[in-house]
């Protein structure tokens, strides 16, 4: 029967993967080898789950409706100082980003004596769908922040998409708890939850 055959192939496939991990860990420290032995059953279950690797379009990973962008950008001379100063003044306030409506989070980490910026974000949809909208709607916010990056062509430049893609690194692995929950949907559910509670308060 075809289904039985498929199950067998699947099991072979998992066994192969387990073997590969065991080989990788042959020269691992003692603590790692023991852990692998003890955790083998859990790992088998993990491997049995269907693979979910997807692309966010040109670059970056995607899970369901959510994508990731991880960029490491060399900073222009003085750029590190300006970004650090700017982030200090903002005191963690990115209320303006609410307007964008697709950003789940943004992370700025200055590296190597403020000479590089690690920028990571989780966003909804396709890689470059809304970049043109940034150009006409929030060009100043984009240029104020990213002019500190080496070689930033300016948000109005037709080369801006190539620039971003060049600084981007696709995540080698990425976990998303709610791959179908967009920012808009999360905000809607928050509202619905609140409304349901209010209703229950009234009748309860």
């Amino acid at each position, binding site marked *: 029967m075809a289904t039985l055959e498929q199950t067998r192939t699947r099991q072979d496939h998992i066994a192969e993967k387990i073997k590969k991990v065991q080989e990788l860990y042959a020269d691992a420290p003692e603590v790692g080898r023991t852990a692998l032995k003890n955790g083998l059953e859990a790992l088998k279950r993990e491997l049995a789950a269907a693979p979910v690797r997807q692309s966010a379009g040109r670059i970056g990973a995607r899970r369901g409706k959510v994508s990731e962008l991880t960029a490491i950008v060399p900073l222009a001379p003085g750029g590190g100082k300006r970004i650090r100063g700017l982030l200090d003044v903002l005191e963690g306030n990115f209320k303006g980003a609410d307007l964008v409506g697709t950003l789940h989070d943004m992370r700025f980490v200055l590296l190597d004596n403020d000479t590089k910026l690690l920028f990571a974000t989780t966003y909804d949809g396709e890689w470059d769908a809304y970049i*043109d909208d940034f150009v006409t709607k929030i060009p100043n916010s984009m240029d104020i922040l990213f002019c500190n990056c080496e070689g930033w062509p300016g948000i109005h430049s*037709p080369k801006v998409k190539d620039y971003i893609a060049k600084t981007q690194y696709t995540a080698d692995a990425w976990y998303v708890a709610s791959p179908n929950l*967009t920012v*808009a*949907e999360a905000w809607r559910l928050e509202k619905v939850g609140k409304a349901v509670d209010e209703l229950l308060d009234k009748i309860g």
Partner: protein
Amino acid sequence: MLSVKESSDANVSTQAPMLDLHEIQATVLRLRPAPYFGSHVLLRIDEAQAGRELLRRLTPHVDSAANWWRPASAWLSLAISYAGLEAIGVQQNSLQSFPEAFRVGMAARSRQLRDEGVNDPENWEPLFGKGEIHIGLNAFSDSKEKWQRIVEMARGQYQSLSGIGVVNVQDFGAQPDDLNSLGYKDGIDQPPIEGSGVDPLPGQGRPIKAGEFILGYPGEAGVPLPMPQPDILGRNGTYVGYRKYQSRVGAFNRFLRANGSTEEERELLAAKLVGRWRSGAPLTLAPDVDNPALGADPKRNNDFNYANDTHGRQVPFGAHIRRMNPRDTQLTRLTDVNIHRVIRRGTTYGKPYDPNAFSQEDDEVPRGAIFLFISAKAMATMEFLQQEWIDEGNFIGIGSERDPIIGRQEEGAVFTIPKEPVRRRVHGIETFNVLRGGEYFFMPSISALKWVASLSG
């Protein structure tokens, strides 16, 4: 152009046009006539020499957009696909200056266009997606006789060239009351273009920068879009997304019948799907009963916004026209509505809409629309529209709902109609228009056509 009538009620501007209308092809700006007749002719270039000879012969017959606001009786346009530019002998450095999505063609961009499932290029008519469509001619006319004359003239030119093959000829139009294949008046809302010589009609919004639609002019961001090189090839040209849809009229009628028990209920549901009654009258201005006189009046049938309909009780958020032009609707994402517009030339082909067609066989009757989507960045705009506004609902706060008219529906799809006290959710919505094929074309200026025709080698 065979003749030009002198008078028209178009909104001719008091300011002189800023665009080189004599260079831009007529189809870019001319509205579809009423009634309308026409043909799409798709040709293959087997020998570069023959391709250039065809351009030499046809260019004198290709009409420009000069005085486009005056009614004309017939016009011919010519567009070239990337495979066509290669086949006709355009040099490598020029070819490389075209955007990637145009170079690889529409079929190769199926993932970005969400052309999957029934709309997958694998299921297209065999003539599409094979790189064999090189030249697209389209002829429009307001009379059967003049349409036949112009098509005959074009045929005379390409048929006598042995290095040119005919891929397909598709006639269109000649529909009763110019209704589309699902029985609606269509093509009402077009983007207003700055400097085109015509002021916006009431409700059309502020004019959009010409560079969004025609190459060589500043766009909404204040700078011109990148242009194919050399300059003479790109300037005053634009891109055309050609998409052929087959209407599943049986499925559409079955859906209306299953969800409306009276004629009135069915027509209201049909209006909710689109945002307009079949007459063209917008629900915003005629929320409860149809008003055919309003639908027929170009000065009034587009004169509205959604300021008084923020809950979607007149026009549902998922309705076709609210998606394709959200106007002042509060969207969930930072969006510049003006940079995602596209000029549409919808051309209905095949049997007219039949309200009594209910069978599955009726779904397969050749009948539907071929759209020309025209913009200086047609590829990027179409991908955006397909990803964000057609096969999604998040942008307007309705989760995964898709466009009820041109969306590809998945199992269990719904359409939500906001209502007091509770919304109505209509189940069982199907894919009513199936994609049967498509291609990207470049529609060059008149000078660019001459330039290509004169290439050597």
